[in-house]
């Protein structure tokens, strides 16, 4: 019973973090919406949230990394390749964003030489990120739908089910 409760809360945390990442990504994709300073600080926070996301999926990450060159399911391999691309893309977005920072880093007294390539790469990787995010969400669509049903549409179980669970416990 305790294990089941733990597992559920883990899914809930995953869903919450993923939802935050998704919304922040959409908001950060348009700096005009927030202004450049919020865009930059939000993106830095976004980087930290991605680390949390990776830590939450560490077991899958480690297990698949070990087995990637051996025989594994096509979907898992596809997922791994896509996630690797996504990680590279996100790293590039955040790094190039820092290199062309106009508010966050200058406020800390750090300034880089303006570089046309970083600007271009920031824009290119951000655009690419939308497509990779689409594929990432698509590959986990069933999980997204189930979690959405469980935590958004029916966040509280019916009293009868709650009573049944209490009796079982």
């Amino acid at each position, binding site marked *: 019973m305790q294990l089941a409760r733990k597992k559920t809360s883990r899914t809930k945390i995953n869903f919450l973090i993923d939802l935050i990442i998704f919304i922040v990504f959409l908001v950060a994709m348009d700096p005009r919406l927030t202004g450049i300073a919020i865009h930059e600080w939000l993106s830095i926070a976004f980087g930290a949230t991605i680390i949390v996301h990776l830590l939450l999926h560490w077991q899958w990450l480690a297990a698949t990394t070990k087995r990637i060159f051996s025989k594994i399911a096509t979907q898992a391999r596809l997922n791994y390749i896509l996630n690797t691309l996504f990680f590279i893309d996100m790293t590039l977005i955040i790094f190039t964003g820092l290199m062309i920072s106009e508010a966050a880093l200058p406020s800390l007294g750090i300034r880089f030489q303006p570089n046309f390539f*970083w600007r271009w790469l920031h824009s290119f990787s951000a655009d690419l990120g939308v497509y990779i995010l689409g*594929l990432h969400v698509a590959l986990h669509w069933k999980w997204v739908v189930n979690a959405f049903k469980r935590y958004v549409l029916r966040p509280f179980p019916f009293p009868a089910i709650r009573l049944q669970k209490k009796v079982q416990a």
Partner: protein
Amino acid sequence: MKIIGRILIILAVALIVVGAAYAFVQTDMAAQLLPGGRGGEFAEGGFPEGEHLDRGARPEFQEGNFNGQPPQGEFMRGGRHDGRSGGTLGFFSFLSMGRHLLTIGVIVLVVVMIDWLSSRRKRRVRIAE
């Protein structure tokens, strides 16, 4: 301790990506990749006066076209990084956000449809067998 180790691994991998990107910028290939094949002083230094981006780049970046005219339509409010005044919660910002959401939605729809069709075909084959 385990978590710190994992964070360090993630940061190390990110550092490899950053290092590769940084090394790539130093090569001539980076300049050739830019829209219009520009590089040289643009890759290394700043922008020439009055000119910010070449064609092919995201229009949100542009602060004016090459005739010195202000940007038109959606981007009339200024460049992508022109939110110094604190952001413009306008219709076009939400339109852009909706466009990204729509792109993601279309991708999800296509992939889910492909998945559904392939699983239906597999089921049919299994029944036929």
